[in-house]
């Protein structure tokens, strides 16, 4: 068993970066995730593992530092909250275009605009449908506990390098700010420079190697046919993600007639709601997407085939993931939404009520 600690989600993410062998973290403070860089600065990772930590001058700079570092074959990460992620979108699009691996944590807060510092899940569309300009996808992981804020870091790096694609960990103010028991994984050593060259030297700018042409990291291609081919190549990669990387969790679904679909903090609230509803004899279960892209459409379709009577999506927004649930379920069962925005958190009792009025009785 690994080391047990009581940590905030943000701190667990930071500690996991050091343990996952990250080479660099570049970030800019913003509530509710500033504990990430504060923790890293206090931990002196340059002494622990040689990891570089730098407070950048802006989110624009942070994400472009990731572009540079990832383009040079290193494991790099950043974190921010919604308005800061909006600023990063230019760079994220460039990284998706240039096929660069990195890990980006978004501890979501409410918007639009400066909005609120309170928890939210309003960046679902932004994270899962592209967000920046151009056709691209991020691989999106949604932690629902402090433990997953730690565990998803090495997973995210693995996926990022496997697909040479940015991976977003889409969290929120609840998961970032809460403390839970976390079992820390054993440290993974950082790649040596020689290992970086061996693993990534065929594409990354690690300095020219005798026997190969220079490496170029770019998202620019002025030839339309070549650019179209590049887009097709990207989408072939995304299709492979859709086939191989769908992750989800089910709770109380064996005998369920109704389903709540929720991720992150909303899934935790929904879990409690399911306990309350089951106490009243309602057969309801939880489907928690862990990858938001690729989305577990097939899982929902299987429930429909087995006679599911209805699906309630619970989100801390005005209803975004519900569009993916509708894409899966189509007209074959009832699909409704319940949520709150602006930092107002839905209560388990409200979720049960919504289940009764919108799905069962509606």
């Amino acid at each position, binding site marked *: 068993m690994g080391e047990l600690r*009581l940590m905030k989600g943000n701190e667990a993410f930071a500690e996991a970066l050091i343990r996952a062998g990250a080479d660099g973290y570049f970030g800019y403070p913003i509530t509710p995730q500033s504990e990430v860089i504060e923790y890293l600065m206090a931990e002196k990772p340059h002494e622990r593992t040689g990891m570089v930590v730098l407070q950048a001058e802006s989110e624009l700079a942070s994400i472009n530092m990731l572009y540079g570092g990832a383009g040079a074959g290193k494991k790099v990460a950043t974190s921010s909250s919604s308005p800061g992620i909006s600023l990063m979108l230019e760079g994220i699009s460039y990284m998706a275009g240039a096929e660069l691996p990195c890990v980006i944590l978004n501890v979501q807060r409410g918007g639009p605009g400066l909005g609120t510092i309170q928890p939210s899940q309003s960046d679902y569309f932004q994270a899962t449908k592209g967000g920046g300009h151009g056709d691209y996808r991020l691989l999106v992981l949604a932690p629902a506990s402090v433990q997953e804020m730690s565990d998803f870091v090495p997973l995210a790096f693995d996926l990022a390098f496997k697909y040479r694609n940015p991976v977003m960990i889409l969290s929120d103010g609840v998961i970032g700010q809460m403390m839970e028991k976390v079992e820390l994984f054993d440290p993974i050593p950082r790649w040596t420079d020689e290992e970086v060259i061996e693993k990534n030297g065929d594409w990354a700018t690690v300095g020219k190697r005798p026997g190969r042409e220079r490496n170029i990291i770019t998202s620019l291609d002025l030839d339309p046919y070549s650019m179209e081919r590049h887009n097709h190549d990207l989408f072939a990669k995304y299709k492979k993600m859709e086939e191989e990387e769908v992750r989800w969790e089910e709770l109380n679904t064996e005998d369920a007639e109704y389903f709540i679909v929720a991720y992150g903090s909303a899934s*935790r609230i929904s879990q409690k709601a399911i*306990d309350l509803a089951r106490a009243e004899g309602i057969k309801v279960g939880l489907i928690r997407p862990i990858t938001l892209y690729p989305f577990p459409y097939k899982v929902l379709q299987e429930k429909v085939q087995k006679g599911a009577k209805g699906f309630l999506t619970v989100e801390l927004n005005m209803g975004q993931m519900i569009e993916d649930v509708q894409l899966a379920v189509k007209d074959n069962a009832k699909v409704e939404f319940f949520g709150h925005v602006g930092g107002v958190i839905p209560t388990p009792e409200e979720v049960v009520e919504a289940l009764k009025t919108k799905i069962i009785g509606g």
Partner: protein
Amino acid sequence: MTEEIIIAGFGGQGVLSMGKILAYSGIMQGQEVSWMPSYGPEMRGGTANVTVILSDERISSPILTKFDTAIILNQQSLDKFEKAVKPGGILLYDPNGITRHPERDDINIYKIDASHVASELGNPKVYNMVVLGAYLKVNPIVSMDNVKEGLKKSLPERYHHLLPLNESAIEEGTKHVEVVREIK
């Protein structure tokens, strides 16, 4: 066993750290725990609250509207959370500065004059430990040994010389808690 607790008061009273010590004590006895604070500018001098859950099972929602226990350290919090205590639950409060005292008759109500006890101990900073002691007296959900371990874990090492003072504050808290109303 699952215990759902809200601790609420002014920023600076040690609300968050009391919750943290309680959560660490839960870990020490092998439980699942969660600690969810209110956060943001309202904490700086304003009200602060934290929801702490200790459970033998996986914890679902870290945010709740109903609590087994409310530990209340100012009037605003009393007004807000008295009604959030489940029937049969516990409300522990510090009567200092309270003008409208708790009124419910379906819950167990206790009080602790923690600032008085803390100043008797010569350090007002251990105020929250006095409150913690009072709570553990009326609801011993974690053993005193595990609390001591939790305290050690949550205090940075440079403050470990203050451990005995904190422990005696907890001890004093257990002695000074008063019953206002108990339902049987």
